[in-house]
Every structure is written in structure tokens, then in C-alpha cells.
């Protein structure tokens, strides 16, 4: 039973509360940042300039319109000791509070190779500052320049870059896209290594990196064992153009590419290479074949395109993953890593004139072609592992595997497991029919 005084008090309290709420409702000023006071950052480019961090934020600036979306995109720059400082500068410059909740892309410029990436991006991991779903990639040249490039589509640059890192491309082994969470989880695992896609800009109409699988195959023999070490920015850039030159078809593009030149012409983006990091420090770049192998191993591939040569003909096979993974065993005190890949293949193209009768047999692939494809995959795996060993960067997660499944031997083997590693390949490529 409610005492009378309480009943009366609750009625009075109710009215006071209502008046208070109405006051709040109509004055509507809570010192909070609402939709009209904030800018929506869709992508962030990070460049390091000595001790300072330079941030280029790509903003979506909505314009008044009653008939639908009317948005302009702009790049705003800010700098400071930390990213938060730089964002604060953007706030001061624009008068809008920059919100990172819709930031779906973080692009690290080449200059970030000199710094620990978790020092650079620390702010993204702070409590509720942003979500860990943003894609992370490293780019050639300055991130600011890349975000300012003009693309062939009308979309903002960051959207086009994100498309190059999309899930669809990931599932076709054309990009090993990762988000903030993935790189942190990998880096803070026992392996202490992570990787992210390396984005390159190609002039529209040219294809620096070959453009499709057929050309990638041609480059295979020249595949590098990863650019380990702490190369300077310019050194890396020349390195990547050298690789591109290996493709033999678009060598011209890369040399002139980058920076200012591309700003004026329309470009396309690819992310077929992968930057690797050890304990947050840059450790090299995997070429396209190595990246392809990494994608096959780590991602759920729906349809990857694999070129191979057999019986004097060049084949392009479409691969559908049936199973992949790696297993670490300790055999006679030696760590033995089995890289397993099983896929169903279908002929996507043969470099010879098409004969109508033959196309019906695309699902039946002859054993020599399958063997050549297996060999091709094996070579790529091998190249990838070699890159890992050469850079002493466990981006495959071997140490983590060792800890998970052979934890008793972890302390004993953890320091030189990569060097002692014995690799087995279990590669099966089967014809669809």
C-alpha cells in the first residue's frame, strides 16, 4: 500500500519530470554532436611525416536536397602527434566534428613503413572510438595522394579502393583484405605477424599488374621472395615496378605512376600484392603469386582464376575451393607443416582458337592439365613460404598453430620454427566432372 504522501509526491514528481523533459526536448542542446554538426568520414589516409602523423580524411558532405541523396566528397587534411590530434585539427578547420563510425577504409601510405603500425593506428583501437570493421591496406606512395586520385567511376575514391578490397575479390583470391580486428588479432597472436593488402593505382586502360590471371602466370618465374627488410619508400616503389615489368605487358605504366601524374588522369586500383608486418613493423611485400597463395590458404575461395601451361598450351582454370588449410605436426623433433589445398577446376580459357565441339568438354580437364595446375599452386605456396622464412615473418601463423596444437613443444621451438620448418604439400585439383 502506497502511503498518501508518497502518492502525492509521485504525482508532483511526474509533472516536474515532464516539464523538465519538455524543456530538454525543446532546447535540444546537450553539448552532443548530432547529425547536423558532424561530418561523416568514409576513409582515412595515414602518412607519416617524421614525428608527425598526417591524416587525410575523405568526407561525405551532404548538400541540401529534398529529392534524395546529394553528397559531395572532399578530402581534408590534419596533422599531429597522434591520429586523434590530427582529427582534432580537422575539427578545428572544418567546424564539424569528425566521426569515425562510418570510416570503412584506412589507407597507410608508404611512409608508414618506418613506424610501428599499431603505434600509428592506436587510436582506432581505443575504447569505442571507431569500430574494428574498417578495412586496412597499405598503398604505394602517399595515402593522401591516392585518396585524391580521380577514378573512372563517379564514386568517391575510397569507395573504389574498397571495391578493390571487397569480399568478392577476396573470394576470388584477388585481394587478401583484412580489417582492423584481423590485423590486431594476428599481430597479438603467438605469431606476432600480420598482413594487409597493398593497393596500387593503375592508369585507366593500362594494366600494370597484368590485369588478369593469364598474365599473372607469365610473371611467376620472376616472383620475388618478398621484399624483406626495411627498404625505403622509393626503393620499394621501384621494386614494385620491377615486378610489374616482369609481366611484360604493361611495364610502362608503373614508372610514371604514383603521385602527381595519376592525380590528373583517371586511375583504377588493384590490391593483388600483400604487405607483411612483424610485431607491427613492416617486413616486406608479397608479390601477386605469393599473395594469391596466401589467399587460397586463408580465405574461403569461391572462384579463383589460375593460369597454367600444359602440353604447349596456356590454360586458365577456374578453381572452386573444396578445402584448404595448414596442419603443423612435430615429426622427430622437426616441425612439419602440411599445406593442403583441394579444389574443383573448370576450364575458363585456352589460348587457342575456339572450336564449338570442344567447349562442351570444359568441365572435363585432362590429367596433365590438372597436374600442371597442381604444380602451379605448389610453386606459389613454396614461394610464399620462402618469403615468410626470408623475412622471418610468420604471417602464416605457424607459431600460433604450434602453440595451439603442440603447446608442449612451443617453448622449445618458438624461436626458430620457421627456419626448421619442413613443408609438405597436399594439393589436389580435380576436374568438376
Amino acid at each position: 500500500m502506497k502511503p498518501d504522501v508518497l502518492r502525492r509526491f509521485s504525482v508532483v514528481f511526474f509533472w516536474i519530470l515532464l516539464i523538465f523533459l519538455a524543456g530538454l526536448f525543446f532546447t535540444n542542446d546537450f553539448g552532443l554532436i548530432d547529425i547536423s554538426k558532424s561530418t561523416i568520414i568514409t576513409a582515412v589516409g595515414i602518412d607519416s611525416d617524421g614525428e608527425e602523423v598526417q591524416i587525410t580524411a575523405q568526407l561525405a558532405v551532404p548538400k541540401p536536397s529534398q529529392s534524395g541523396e546529394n553528397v559531395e566528397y572532399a578530402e581534408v587534411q590534419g596533422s599531429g602527434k597522434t591520429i586523434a590530434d590530427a582529427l582534432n585539427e580537422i575539427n578545428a578547420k572544418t567546424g564539424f566534428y569528425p566521426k569515425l563510425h562510418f570510416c570503412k577504409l584506412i589507407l597507410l601510405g608508404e611512409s608508414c613503413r618506418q613506424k610501428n603500425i599499431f603505434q600509428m593506428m592506436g587510436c582506432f583501437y581505443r575504447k569505442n572510438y571507431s569500430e574494428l570493421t574498417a578495412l586496412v591496406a597499405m598503398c604505394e606512395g602517399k595515402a593522401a595522394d591516392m585518396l585524391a586520385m580521380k577514378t573512372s567511376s563517379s564514386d568517391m575514391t575510397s569507395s573504389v579502393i574498397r571495391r578493390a578490397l571487397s569480399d568478392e575479390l577476396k573470394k576470388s583470391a584477388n585481394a587478401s583484405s583484412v580489417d582492423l580486428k584481423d590485423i590486431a588479432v594476428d599481430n597479438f597472436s603467438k605469431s606476432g605477424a600480420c598482413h594487409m593488402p597493398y593497393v596500387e593505382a593503375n592508369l585507366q586502360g593500362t594494366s600494370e599488374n597484368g590485369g588478369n590471371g593469364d598474365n599473372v602466370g607469365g610473371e611467376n618465374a620472376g616472383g620475388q621472395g618478398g621484399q624483406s627488410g626495411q627498404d625505403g619508400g622509393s626503393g620499394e616503389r621501384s621494386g614494385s615496378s620491377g615486378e610489374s615489368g616482369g609481366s611484360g605487358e604493361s611495364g610502362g605504366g608503373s614508372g610514371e605512376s604514383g603521385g602527381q601524374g595519376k592525380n590528373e588522369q583517371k586511375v583504377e586500383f588493384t590490391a593483388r600484392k600483400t604487405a607483411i608486418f612483424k610485431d607491427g613493423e613492416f617486413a616486406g611485400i608479397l608479390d601477386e603469386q605469393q599473395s594469391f597463395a596466401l589467399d587460397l590458404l586463408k580465405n574461403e575461395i569461391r572462384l579463383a582464376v589460375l593460369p597454367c601451361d600444359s602440353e604447349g598450351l596456356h590454360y586458365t582454370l577456374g578453381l572452386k575451393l573444396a578445402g584448404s588449410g595448414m596442419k603443423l605436426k612435430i615429426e622427430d623433433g622437426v616441425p612439419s607443416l602440411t599445406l593442403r589445398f583441394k579444389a574443383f577446376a573448370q576450364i575458363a580459357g585456352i589460348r587457342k582458337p575456339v572450336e564449338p565441339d570442344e567447349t562442351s568438354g570444359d568441365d572435363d580437364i585432362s590429367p596433365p592439365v590438372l597436374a600442371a595446375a597442381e604444380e602451379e599452386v605448389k610453386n606459389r605456396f613454396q614461394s610464399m613460404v620462402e618469403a615468410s622464412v626470408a623475412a622471418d615473418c610468420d604471417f602464416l601463423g605457424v607459431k600460433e598453430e604450434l602453440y595451439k596444437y603442440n603447446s608442449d613443444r612451443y617453448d622449445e621451438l618458438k624461436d626458430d620454427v620457421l627456419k626448421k620448418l619442413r613443408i609438405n604439400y597436399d594439393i589436389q585439383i580435380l576436374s568438376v566432372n
Partner: protein
Amino acid sequence: MTSLDKNVGAVKKVLTSEDVLVFEFISAGGKKFAAVYADDICDKNMIGELAVKPLRDVKKGDGFDKVRMLLASPEFKESNKIRDAIKEISDGNAVVFVDGESDFCILGLKKPPARAITEPPTQIAVSGPREGFIEDIKTNSGLVRKRIKSPALQIKQIKSGKRSDTNIAIVYIEGVCPKGLPERVEKEIAENKIDIIPDSSYVSSFISKRPRSLFKRCASAEKPDVFCAKVCEGRVGILVDGSPIALTVPYMIVEDFQTSEDYYTNSYRATVLRIIRAISVLIGMFLPAIYVSAQLFKIQLIPFRLLLKISSSVQGIPLSPSIEMFLTLLVLEVLNEASIRMPKYVGLALSVVGALVLGDTAVKAGIISTPAIIIIAFSAICLYTVPDFAETTTTLRWIFLIIAGSIGPFGVVVLSAFLIGYLVTENSYGTPLLAPFAPLVKGDLYDSVVKANMYSLKNRPGALRVGDKVRFKNENKR
């Protein structure tokens, strides 16, 4: 002065109004009579048929017994108290005074003006009966009787209203209705002394334990089929003279989500419709609040592409998101109120003014954004999927909007939790408002959000604690 003049004089002394008429006639035998009745609500022709004609043969010396024998009215009462005569005349019946007798006869010739039975405007059904209650309690009782011919059906007549003396019928089925419930209802109605009861909503307040509550405590029915179904489930029905809306108690909120058509269509379809209704009510109540709190406090709630569209729309709007939504909702409520009250021919013009002038022009002028209008319009449509509950939900929408604009999404969550905490302990005549969900009554769940087929609804609602639990037996054991 004869006794006849004395009686008529006594009546006329109280009923001074000119529409209370006195019709004096003399039988062939010379006996004097006077019929007193209220014009307009009494069937004058029947006075001739049922009183004047039969009494033609009365002789001067015949006593009251002879008169009583000759009057063949199906509704016949006798009394000798002038008070009763006044009451009956006011009620529309005719009183026949006999010269030389202190006793008089009351003939049930009430015939108040009434409209024809039509389909109620707020409970239109595509399938199922289309009859609706009207303002005449007799007709309404008849509609009930027509459907429930059981001898256990009880229609208890009471009166309420100090001046209106309104007839109220308490309808229930003996043996099915929980014991003591009709008496409780009667007592609670009787406890309220009010001048006039123009509508059943007054009675609804009388029988609510918490009349100040936002949530009602009794259900309403405009259709006799719905009313009878509820009475057969064990509820007590209340018919009020002068009101086409009947009441039933105990009430559970889930009742408002059930329509008569649910029982006349396929149970799967009915279930889908009920789920849609429930979702619609939630959307209708919360959408404006969520929209405002998303804009003010948590823009992440809005998908990126939509956010860009909304941002474009709200750029340049001179009002803050909360005030913009408040004004849009206010316009809706004003239009709604005006469209109900205005004559139909003005209503059309009002729609044009409302939709075109206020809506389109306000958007074009950049005063209100397009999303705000879409949200309010959708919310309004959603709430009227459950019209019986709309009274509560439209009020709650205002409250949620104010909370969302002042405290944000957390305020909305706290208020929702508060409402749950409040509703779980509220009841209507011992039946919890949130039954069959809290407390969970397993059997009743088959007729809640889900509408099971007839064979699964063998028992009456357990939450009502009825006397006879079984309502359906199938001999084929389906």
C-alpha cells in the same frame, strides 16, 4: 376531484414537460381512463391497440382485476406508487390510470428513436457477420440473444445515472463466467453516482480500478458476434443504453490484437496478420523516437547510404530533428482530429490542404524534411492496424518521442522497461493485462500472437479462470 384526476395531476406535477401527454378515454360502459406517456419515445399507436381497444367493454362498476385481465400487453406491470409511474413514463412506457383505482397499469410501449442495424465503421469485416450494435439497448440485447440461445445466458438490467437513469445490461453466462464477477461489476457501477451516462466509456471508467491509467481495463466491442464470443469465453459483457459500443471484462491487452476476422479465416493467415499487427504497433510507437534519437545521439543506427540521404534532406532545415518531428506529429494529430470532426464535404478539402499544402509545400519550402513526413505517415498507418489500442499507443508515441529527443535511445529503453515493470502487475478483474505472456498461460498462447486452428482451441482462456473450462469437443478427436 376524481382519483383519476388526482393521479394524473400528481404525475403532471412532477413531469411538467409539455411532451408528457395525457390521453383520456372512456369505455363503452362509461369507465374513465387516462393514458400518460412521453411523446416521441412511446409507441402511440400501440396505446390504441393494446389499451383503448381492449378496455372498450369495461363497465363502470368493474374493478381493477377486470382491467388487468383485458390489457393484453406482453410487457405489463402494475403499481400503485406514483414514483414508479414517473419512472416508467420517463423511460418511454405508457401508464394507464383507471378511475376510482389507486393501482395503475404500466404498458411496455417504449419505442425510442433508433437507427437501423448497420456495419460498425471501426470494425469493418471482409468476411463474417456485418451487424453492429446500435444505440438502443433492447435491440442490442436482442442481437445478443439471437446468437446465444442458451438458458444460462443472463442479462441483468441495472440503472445508473442520477438524472439519466440509463439502462445498463450486464450479460454473462451462468456457470461459465467466474463466480462473483457479475456482482463485482454491478457493485462498481452502482458505486458511481453521476448525472448522466451518455456513453459506455463512462461505465468503462467506473469499472477500471485505475481510471487515471494510460491503459484501459476493459475491452470494447461494436459487433454482436465479437461480444458474444467474448461472453462465451467467460467474460462479463456490458451494454449501455444509448451507446453502440459494448464493453467486456476482464480485459487482456492481447485482445486488442485479435479481430473477428481472425476466427473466420485460415489460421495461418490469421497468425501472419497478428504478427504484422504486433510489429506494426511496435514500429508505429517507436519509429519516430528511434529516428530522432538516431539523428541526435547515435547516427550509427542509420545505414550509411540512408544516412547520406537523410543528411541531404535535413541540411538546411531550420528546425532541430526533435522539433521537426514534434511539429510533423502535431500536424498529423491536428489533421486526424479535424478530419474526424469536420463534415464530410469539408473533409475532402481538408485532405487536399493537409496532404498538398502542408505536406508538399512544407517540404519544398525546406521547413520539414521528407524523411520526417515519411516516418510520421508510416507510424500513423502502423498504429491504426490495431485501432482498439490506438488510444494508448498514440499517446505513448508522444511520450517516447519526447524522451527520445531529450534523453536519447537509453531513455526509450528505460521507459520501455518501466512500462513492462508497470504492466506486469496490472490486472483487470484479477486477470493480468499481459496474460497470456506474463504470467505465462501455455494454453492461451494458441490464441495470442499465434492463432491456432479451432481444434487447438478446445479450452476457454485459462487466464480468465472460468468455471467451465472446455468450450469445444470434437467427437472425431481431431
